[in-house]
Every structure is written in structure tokens, then in C-alpha cells.
């Protein structure tokens, strides 16, 4: 339950971080460490070098530039939950952030760390895919923008190279507000199933699940007004995904949670961000 020995380097620029990562192939980046340190405590991972990026000021921004909402990779989950710009331009992130871990975890864990860790049950990778975001990464070759839909390869795996660092996530302005719901045994535990649902108001939309398949996929779907027909649509959408474990219960949960996320997307004004709406998915099915 104690980590193996490693060398520790603190950096203040992305260039410095990338150089260290390039020179030490089994180095790891530590940002919040809320997923990495448990793995190190269990010795499931034993990096020879930890590159601590917490001192990089250039990764700590939240900016709405009129076209994109840009969130630096070092922004903490709790900062996202509390940020008024995010609440204004992408309120679904405000709702989702409140479901990430517990308060003490949210105070330290970061957007970039969660995107890179690629836990299929976590909120941010699915958000990035659901929101058509792009992930900006920097490596020895320079900067590249990767559409979130191409970033994830499967369980805990992404196209991020060992010598690359996530700089920021870039989210385009939303045409339609997304709904969110998540089911966990207790709030803050890993999701048994969660979903983001986008409704275009014309009976069409998209659903992006997490905790259901090996990676988030934005699936187009019809969204009929009738509950039974909608349930049928969720089933159809799920049919396109590889669900590997406990199929029966996972499909049941995924249908219920997509429906709740859709219901959440229909809430107007202050109701959308109310404590009841945020806790909605927590109620027993």
C-alpha cells in the first residue's frame, strides 16, 4: 500500500514537461493524482519519474472566447462545478462536475487528468464526446487538436502518446442544452451508468453513455414524445455499443438513465440547475 520509489520533478512550462516525458519513456504526469496515486499505492503502476505539472500556470484557465469554451487541463473538478462562465455557456458541465467523486477528490482532481485516464465510467471523457469537443495536446512535435470522438480507443486507452500532455479542452458553443443523469450506489461512487442527452427539439438528438461500454460514443437517435417509443429508441441506440459485462442489468440501467438525462434536458431555467435535478439520477430506479 505504499508507492515504489520514483524520481520527482516539478515543472512550470509545458515544454519542460514534454522534454522530461520524451527522455524518460516510463515517466508519468501527475496532476491531481486522484486516479494515479491509488494505482501507485497498489503498485499497479511504478513510474520511474513523476512529472508534477501543478505549477504550470498556462493550464489553469477557463475562457469563453465567443466561439469556444476553453478549459485548461489543470482546472479542478470543483472549480468547474463553481465556475459562472461554465454555468452560463455549458451548464451540463456544472451538473456533471457535482457527480465526480467526493468534495475532497474534486478539490484536487483535474479535467485533463480525467480525460487522459479514460476510465469508461468517468464523466469528462463522455462529456467531451457528447459536446463534440476537441482535445489539444502538446508533444515534442508541437501541438495537435484531436476530436474527442477520435481520442478514446477503449478501456483506459487513448491516442495520447507517452510524451504528450493535454493542454486544454475546446468546447464549441451549444445549439441545444444537454441533459445529464448518473446512477451510482452512492453519490460520488463510480457510475453504474450515466448519460448525456442532446435534444434538437424536432424529435432528433444524440445520446452519449458512460459506464456502459468501453469508451464514450455519441449515438444519434430519434426522440419521440411518447415514453414507450423513447424507451424503444434508447434500446436501439444501445444496440450499437459493445456491452461486455452483465448485459441485462447494464442495458436496463442505461435505458433508465438515458430517459432521466432526457427529462433533465427538458427542464427550464433555474430548475435545470436545482439540487433536485442534479440529484435526480441518485434516486432508486
Amino acid at each position, binding site marked *: *500500500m*505504499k*508507492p*515504489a*520509489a*520514483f*524520481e*520527482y520533478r516539478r515543472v512550470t512550462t509545458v515544454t519542460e514537461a514534454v522534454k522530461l516525458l520524451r527522455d524518460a519513456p516510463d515517466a508519468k504526469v*501527475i496532476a491531481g*493524482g*486522484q486516479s494515479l*496515486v*491509488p494505482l501507485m*499505492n*497498489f503498485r499497479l503502476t511504478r513510474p520511474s519519474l*513523476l512529472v*508534477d505539472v*501543478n505549477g504550470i500556470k498556462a493550464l489553469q484557465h477557463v475562457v469563453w472566447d465567443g466561439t469556444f469554451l476553453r478549459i485548461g487541463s489543470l482546472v479542478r473538478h*470543483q472549480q468547474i462545478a463553481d465556475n459562472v462562465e461554465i454555468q452560463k455557456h455549458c451548464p451540463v458541465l456544472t451538473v456533471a462536475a457535482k457527480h465526480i*467523486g*467526493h*468534495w*475532497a*477528490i474534486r*478539490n*484536487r482532481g483535474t479535467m485533463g487528468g480525467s480525460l487522459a485516464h479514460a476510465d469508461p465510467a468517468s464523466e469528462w471523457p463522455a462529456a467531451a464526446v457528447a459536446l463534440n469537443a476537441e482535445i489539444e495536446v502538446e508533444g515534442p512535435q508541437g501541438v495537435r487538436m484531436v476530436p474527442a470522438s477520435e481520442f478514446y480507443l477503449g478501456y483506459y486507452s487513448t491516442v495520447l502518446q507517452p510524451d504528450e500532455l493535454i493542454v486544454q479542452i475546446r468546447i464549441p458553443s451549444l445549439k441545444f442544452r444537454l441533459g445529464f443523469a448518473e446512477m451510482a450506489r*452512492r*453519490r*460520488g461512487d463510480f457510475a453504474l451508468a450515466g448519460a448525456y442527452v442532446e435534444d434538437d427539439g424536432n424529435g432528433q438528438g444524440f445520446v452519449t453513455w458512460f459506464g456502459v461500454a468501453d469508451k464514450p460514443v455519441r449515438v444519434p437517435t430519434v426522440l419521440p414524445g411518447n415514453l414507450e417509443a423513447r424507451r424503444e429508441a434508447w434500446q436501439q441506440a444501445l444496440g450499437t455499443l459493445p456491452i461486455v459485462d452483465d448485459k441485462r442489468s447494464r442495458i436496463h440501467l442505461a435505458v433508465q438513465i438515458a430517459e432521466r438525462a432526457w427529462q433533465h434536458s427538458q427542464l427550464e431555467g433555474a430548475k435545470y440547475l436545482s*439540487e433536485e435535478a442534479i*440529484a435526480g439520477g441518485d434516486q432508486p430506479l
Partner: protein
Amino acid sequence: MNNKVPLKLTVNGGTFDIEVEPRWLLSDVLRHQLGLVGTHVGCEQGACGACTVLIDGKPERSCLTFAIQVEGQQITTVEGLTQDENLTPLQEAFSEHHALQCGYCTPGMLLTATALLQQDPHPSELKVREAISGNVCRCTGYQFIVDAILAASGNAKEDQR
């Protein structure tokens, strides 16, 4: 491999010059190097909340942070809640409301609740429950802890025992 490095740690208002290995967790350094054994270690994977301390006023897991990472930041442990022999009003409320039995979770609970009350002096019951949801207690069933935090905030419930 012995690669100790010097570290200046600020804990409960005091500064400590120590030497640590980079791999040492903040929880272990507080307990073993500084003798501050009020910080309890439960799961060492971030799940139980017993090791919660305040880092620059915010509750964080000391078992998921390396001591070397928090140089220059203000650490508060349960020993630092009061500078003298007395208890804080929150600690008094814990005592009055029987909010602990074995006491293992108590330091983490106290620090989380202290941060909550600093941020929101009159939280709702829902907010209290949300705030301490990351602190596991296996004795009390949480009710008395919630009662104590609400009492300390002056938001005691009608049917207060």
C-alpha cells in the same frame, strides 16, 4: 533507493524542515515525521476519507498526495483546529450529539465539516450530507454527525435530541 530531499512543510501554522523521499505520502509524513497521529489512515486509496486534511483551506486526501507536492501550502490537521486545550464549537457539538463512537473517521469528518462551515455558515441538511459523503463512518449511521454539524451551524433541526 534512498533519495531523500529537503522539504519545508507548513502545518497548523508552524514550519517544519524535514527530509522526505518523494514517494512518501502526506498522510505518512504527518504521522511518522511530525508525530501528528490525529490524521488517520484507512484505505490509502481515497475512498474512506479518514486521512482528509485541509490544504490551503480545502479538504483533500492526504493519502493521495505526496508530501513533496505541498511545499509552500498551508496544511491543517485535526490538531490544528484549536491552538489551545479547548474544543471548537464544532468539536463541542460532536461531543454533545454523540457524533462519534470509535473515533476513527472523526478527524476527517471534523476537517471536512470545518471547511464546509467556513464556506457556508448555514448549510442545509442536504448540503451537509453531500459534503461528508466522502467520509465513511461505520459506527454512527451518520445521523448524529449530521445533527452535530447542523447544531454547530445554528441550523439545529426541530426534533433535535
